């Protein structure tokens, strides 16, 4: 359970492959048990679900090459490491974690996170080997850093919120994922404000994937 088996071909050349489809996994925070934070009269899990569905639509509308997978259905229970397990088996190209919290600030903030542990200077061996689940991110650590920085740079141009990061942190929803995995935490003044983030987020993801040659 605590080990993620990795094979030599996994650290593939992420940027150079020309793909027919790009799979993006979207993880809305919360599940049947975890309600998340309270935002207005709603729970975080409901808002992240709405945002994930809308983001998936926007991404697919933008490019027919994109396939999106949402990690959970509204009343589903998500056991620990299930998302990582599915993301690694599906060999997704990008993993996005969506998180919301309430704020009273006049100008809301958005934070961009990517997974890290203290010893991330270690390089993983390229031949067949086992690695612990919390070091799986090292396979695509550099490309994750580049993607997260590019997405944050594009989001920082938004006039509706302030974008910060990307920060390296042991961010639990991203643990064990081999593909580039980025988490977004967005502040909401009102529960309906999530829509202000969906469009800029979709545009930033699309533009970044195009810049790196993943999307035509």
């Amino acid at each position: 359970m605590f080990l993620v088996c990795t094979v030599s071909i996994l650290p593939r050349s992420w940027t150079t492959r020309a793909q027919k489809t790009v799979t993006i996994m979207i993880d809305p925070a919360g599940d049947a048990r975890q309600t998340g934070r309270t935002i207005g009269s709603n729970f975080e899990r409901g808002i992240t679900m709405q945002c994930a569905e809308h983001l998936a639509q926007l991404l697919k509308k933008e490019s027919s090459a994109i396939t999106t997978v949402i990690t959970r259905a509204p009343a589903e229970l998500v056991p620990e490491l299930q998302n990582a397990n599915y993301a690694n088996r599906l060999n997704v190209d990008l993993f996005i974690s969506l998180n919301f919290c309430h704020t009273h600030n006049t100008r809301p903030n958005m934070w961009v996170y990517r997974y890290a542990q203290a010893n991330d200077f270690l390089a993983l061996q390229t031949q067949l080997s086992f690695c612990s689940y919390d070091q799986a991110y090292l396979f695509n650590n550099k490309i994750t850093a580049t993607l997260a920085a590019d997405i944050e740079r594009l989001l920082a141009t938004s006039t509706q919120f302030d974008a910060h990061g990307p920060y390296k942190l042991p961010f639990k929803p991203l643990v064990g994922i081999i593909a580039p995995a980025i988490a977004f935490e967005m502040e909401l003044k009102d529960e309906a404000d999530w829509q202000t983030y969906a469009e800029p987020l979709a545009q930033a993801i699309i533009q970044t994937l195009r810049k790196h040659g993943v999307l035509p």
Partner: protein
Amino acid sequence: MSGRKYTLISLIAFAIGMLLCALHYEWIVIRSPLEVIAYNPESVQTGKKETKLFFWKHNKWHQETQSLLWSNDGAHNISQLISALLNVLDDEHLLRKKIGVESVALSPSGLQAYISFDHNPLPKESNVHQKWLLIESMLKTIRENGIKIQDVQFLVYHEPLSDYHLDFNQPWPLNGFLHQK
């Protein structure tokens, strides 16, 4: 063999079993009278020290100086520092409820500290950034007061601290993650 012998053997076996069970669960403790537990008060040197406590508020670091009882026991010093910091955080309304340090222990190498709280110090409704900086405040306070450790394992009642966003299954480096981008 008669029935009386069987009963006797069974009773003796039962008594031995009970005795071993009591020893195993430490209901009975056997101590040699030759063993002397020596307490040398001179080995623990204590004195007052001006310590710096750091916390993050209004998008910047704040520093408060407090005089604490300092000793040559690293675990005791960390306990004092974190308890004082938690009091300051409570005064500044950065905690939702009063949190205390249950116990602090150092690993045999002395490089890893285990800090056990009596409640989860991370408020559920806070954003990840606030929770992260609360942890960074503790790490910075330990670091800036010259305690020579490398990692800190955060616990609640001796179990790893549980949070939806931050992973405490692994120890956090004393340098934290604040300067890593």
